[in-house]
């Protein structure tokens, strides 16, 4: 520890103003602050501060994703880990590049995007596609808007939409059939070349042909699908931790899932044709993962309470409608992006209401 501190102290000079390495100072700062929290003193009132900081907020999200990641590795093999590494590396390059160009600090928000992105992809997707997708997502979804805190859309979802439109075949076919018996696929590396391990369809796609996967299978994760969404149990574990620690807004989660279930119930009893029951729909596909980890992103969701409810309901309803009334099998991705577009408008309305209430106070 002391050694590391001394090493950092010694190398700091090389990044000073006017030195050759000065342009890459954000990289050095990020590395330094990764190991040692900076000395930062309050200059004016208030002189004390709450211990909550963005770094901890982000590490909290990553901890909450870990169960889902572990399930993905267990059921689909080590390729998922490789996807995470590639996603971090490729997305990290874009993030660092922009930090250097803009002479800003490197933000840790990327660490969450880089982790979420591979988990919403088919688990056997070629690694180069993961790299292209995350670079597009970070670049267009975040950096072009001005970086962390200013983006309109969830960068991971922007990356996924790009992949889904650019490589529709790869994005619809690279599912892996899971192995439930211990040790699962935990020691295997299944990529798109392994024909025998590739599954034909996800539960949602199979349901359109009239084949329903078992509820217990889906709850534990023994079904084909995107890497992170496979096990409802793991998502609930992480998601409930996020809500208990108040990193994710419970209003959004409850709103999304509630309105989704409601819409599914209505559709189940009114639409002709085989529509699986609502509880089945809840466990199938990405609705749980989306509700807990994607829709709750504070930057791209509304900031006001009223706005949050409306936003959550839009996402829940849109997901159900896209699933059953369009050609798409899964609708969470588009539904959340739709919610993201609406978020500023919803905030505007909620603020106007709030201001009317404040108008009489002197």
């Amino acid at each position, binding site marked *: 520890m002391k050694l590391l501190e001394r090493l950092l102290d010694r190398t700091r000079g090389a990044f000073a103003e006017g030195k050759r390495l000065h342009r890459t100072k954000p990289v050095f700062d990020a590395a330094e602050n990764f190991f040692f929290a900076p000395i930062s003193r309050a200059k004016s009132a208030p002189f004390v501060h709450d211990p909550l900081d963005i770094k901890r907020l982000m590490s909290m999200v990553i901890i909450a994703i870990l169960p889902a990641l572990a399930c993905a590795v267990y059921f689909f093999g080590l390729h998922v880990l490789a996807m995470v590494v590639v996603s971090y590396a490729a997305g990290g390059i874009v993030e660092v590049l922009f930090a250097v160009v803009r002479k800003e600090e490197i*933000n840790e928000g990327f660490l969450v995007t880089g982790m979420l992105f591979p988990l919403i992809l088919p688990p056997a997707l070629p690694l180069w596609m993961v790299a292209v997708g995350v670079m597009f997502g970070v670049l267009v979804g975040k950096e072009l808007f001005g970086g962390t805190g200013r983006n309109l859309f969830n960068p991971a979802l922007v990356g996924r939409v790009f992949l889904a439109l650019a490589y529709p075949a790869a994005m619809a076919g690279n599912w892996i059939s899971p192995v439930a018996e211990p040790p699962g696929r935990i020691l295997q590396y299944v990529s798109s070349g392994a024909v025998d391990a590739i599954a034909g369809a996800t539960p949602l796609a199979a349901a359109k042909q009239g084949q329903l996967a078992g509820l217990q299978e889906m709850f534990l994760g023994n079904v084909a699908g995107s890497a992170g969404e496979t096990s409802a149990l793991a998502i609930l574990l992480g998601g409930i931790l996020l809500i208990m620690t108040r990193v994710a807004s419970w209003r959004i989660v409850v709103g999304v899932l509630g309105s989704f279930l409601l819409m599914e119930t209505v559709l189940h009893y009114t639409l002709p044709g085989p529509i699986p029951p609502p509880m089945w729909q809840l466990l199938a596909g990405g609705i749980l993962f989306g509700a807990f980890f994607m829709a709750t992103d504070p930057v791209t969701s509304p900031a006001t309470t009223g706005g949050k409810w409306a936003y959550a309901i839009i996402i829940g309803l849109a997901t159900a409608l896209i699933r059953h009334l369009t050609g798409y099998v899964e609708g969470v991705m588009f539904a959340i992006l739709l919610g993201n577009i609406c978020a500023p408008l919803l905030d505007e309305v909620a603020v106007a209401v709030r201001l009317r209430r404040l108008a009489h106070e002197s």
Partner: protein
Amino acid sequence: MKLRGGYTVQMAGKPVGSVEVLPDPDELYLPLFSRRFRFTELCVGDGDRVRPGKVLARDPSNHGVPLLAPREGTVRLNAIPRHLVLQNVSAGVPEPLEDSDEPSHIPRNLGSVEMKRNKLLLLGAWQYFFDAHSGALPNPFGTPQAVIVSTLNLEPFLGRGDVQLRARLKSFTRGLEQIQTLLEYQPIFLILPKVAAALAEQVSQAIRGYAHIKPVHVPLRYPFDNFTVLARYLGLKRQKDQPVWALRTEGVLALDRALTASKPCDLRVISIGGPAATSPAHVVAMPGYPLKTLLSKRIADGPVRVLNGGVLSGQEIAPDQAGLDCECLGITALGEQTEREFLAFVRPGAGRWSYSRCFLSALRRPMPERMTTAIRGEHRPCVSCGFCEEICPAGIMPHLLHKLLYQDDLEAAIKVRLDLCVACGLCSFVCPSKIDLCGQFQKAMETFRMEQMEHMAQEAPA
């Protein structure tokens, strides 16, 4: 309006309930400035020997509030810049801190209201009054629409109102009576804690039968002792010629002393607390008390930040300030951050208590923390987490204001009610991105006021 937001800040270093009387010093260094006042009009000459209670200087821009000589001494004008020094101070007559055998009610017909108000001004009791909306000194000869008397002091480490009340309940109720004689039929709102405390019960008993005093119970959460918040809570609107007067416990006691006993208000009960104070306590000191003597042995060694006021809304004591100023509520000592935490962000947070209950503090009970000046994190862009909005007692949206001010759109910020900010500092306290919201709002409000004044000045000649 309902009371909303607010926070009980749990911190180690609260002053204990006893009051210590300090010995009179040999020299007094009276600062010619304080938070609200600038005593620019000197009333004594160099070398004058002054009696206690003599007016040494006045603040012409604040209705001429006087700076009084707390003790007999010889004036030195230029010994220390921005200070007036009293040398060879003779010790005062010790007075009991507790209620003495004075009558518990005020005698009738003690002169006209104008005379009384003049007396308040001259005897140094008027400085304890605030305009609830602006925080400025109200006009002593104006008519208020109401008076707010707060017995609470909810900022951590500051002098507690109950400490002063306990010994002086009789003077306090007599002071409330005196306030009534200054008014016509305006209500007096007495702010009491919304908890079952013996003392609050005693106060309620003591004021039973005073029809004009209305007890108001508020939760013990910072900043519900803030006069602006209280005025809004009570529905008292800002009116041009009818301000809301506000004062704290010590103000009522000072007023009683000036009007009942006709003595100058020379002593203040202040707190010396904070995480870096060795023995947090209340002390009785007079304005001008040398800070060096006052703070020696009461503050821990090592780098320490000494604040005038509380940790959330106080100010750093200027390096050239030598003596206690006449408005000081308390002195807070806060250790400077010196250590860097190794791999800080992976620590689960079992040893810290967070307002937002992030990490493990969600799973444990509240605990007092030993805090330093560390802002505990890095500056980051706002992520609209909404914690500032949740804690804001004024009910405004700090994150939205921040975004508007970031765009330099002051006009829009005023439209979203930047003017309602009470500068409690809680938004900056909780912000995970460590944005100095409170400071930003203060600066913006100042700019706005300047622009308004310029605007008015331009319109006046036409």
